[in-house]
């Protein structure tokens, strides 16, 4: 499966989680996401997400001047961001459970159509 498609839905919470651990600037967040295993994450997607979360009040930002080059824009999490992170963490856990259960239940491909349907509908509850 194309993980970039999956990433789109969870990039917000992933970025929030990374920034919640420690404040970071754009490329730093990208690096930490990649280090955590999200190798396909695009730079620009992360930067855009940071800006959007900032505009939405989930992140704060501050500029740190640098002696060697251009200034760095750091992001930190706000109480609102923490609250959102908490909510999304729960949503994700429930969703992941559901998907895991769904996928684990369908390993045998001899399940009759009707039972498969039932499993599927139970799974999405």
């Amino acid at each position, binding site marked *: 499966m194309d993980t970039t498609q999956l990433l789109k839905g969870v990039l917000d919470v992933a970025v929030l989680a990374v920034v919640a651990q420690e404040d970071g600037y754009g490329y730093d967040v990208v690096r930490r996401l990649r280090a955590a295993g999200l190798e396909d994450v695009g*730079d620009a997607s992360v930067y855009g997400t940071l800006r959007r979360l900032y505009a939405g009040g989930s992140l704060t930002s501050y500029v740190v001047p640098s002696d060697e080059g*251009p200034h760095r824009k750091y992001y930190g999490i706000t109480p*609102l961001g923490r609250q959102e992170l908490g909510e999304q963490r729960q949503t994700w856990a429930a969703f992941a459970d559901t998907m895991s259960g769904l996928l684990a239940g369908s390993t045998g491909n001899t399940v009759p159509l009707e039972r498969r349907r039932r499993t599927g509908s139970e799974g999405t509850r």
Partner: protein
Amino acid sequence: MNTVTETPDLANYLAAVRRELGDLGADEVDELTGGLEADLADALDGSDRTPEGMFGPPEAYAAELRAAAGLSPRGAKRVPQLDIRPRIAAAKAWLDRQPWGPGVKAFGETARPLWWAFRSYVLYQLIVQTLSGTRQRAPESEVQWLLLVVLVIGGIELERRKWFSSDRFRRGLVGAADLLAVGSLVLAAWLFVIPNYSVVGLVPVGIDGYTNASSMPESGPVEGVTNGGRLVHNIFPYDSEGNPLQGVQLFDDQGRMLVPSEKTYSEGMSDVSVNPAKGRDGRDLFNVYPLKETLSGWDEDGNEIPATTRDAKASSRLQYPVGQDDPQPTATATAGPTPTLTETAEPTPTEPGDPTPSAELTETPADGDEG
């Protein structure tokens, strides 16, 4: 590490990205690309790839950036608008931090239907005032009641059921109604807060900012003559016989000219302006009454009428002959009934206290108890 050779490349790349974002506001571009140079430089650090090789074409990079930031793609028709959502979010975050925040929020949530109903009421006022041109707070006919009820129920249901599958349409509709209602609230608050604003009672919780073209403006002293709080356009002088006078100059007790407080006003679809008289020295004199009027604008059928100057007409004939306060009333007290007097009696001057046989003279006040 080859920062020296990289920098112009990176600067060019960034400039190209910024160009791609050119349709956004300057603030948004700054917001999107602020700190980006450092991020890209970091990413490039230690690599001999060009920015384009590393990040792809600037167009694609900019597109990804704006898509992730939740902005519309380039070329999509952007309605110029103030994006207040971040501010609202920030205000909400601030509210959450206050100890009383949750209470206020809960109250707001509970009171929301009230807002929906109010919004519908504003819409109702707009419709009724546009159609009928009348101004009243409460409906006065069954049709108006029906309209109000339908609008209120519709407004509440619109929210409750999330009508219209096209979410944008619904949001637009609701947004417009919200804006309208907020505007009218602000207007109402403004009008009510102004001290000594005598027509507050006339102001509907409504849409139009005007109360009456001839009423006092909201604040500040009024230049010129007013009458009981109303602006005066013209003055019609009459002599003691009730004959209209022309070219009457009026001054106040300190010798200042009495000029109209409103020199231009509307009369239906047309504008009327009063014209000053010309003084000998060429000055415009606005205290010479009655002032002539110039009419311009449109007639009832919507045809433009050429500007015409006319004599001002008094709205109605309210003037009456007056009795004069003379220290010797006998000679002139009968000025009014004189015509009848000449028919019935000799026009000889009468002595005070000397009753004449004429019936008409019984009306004169002198020695009335004799008759």
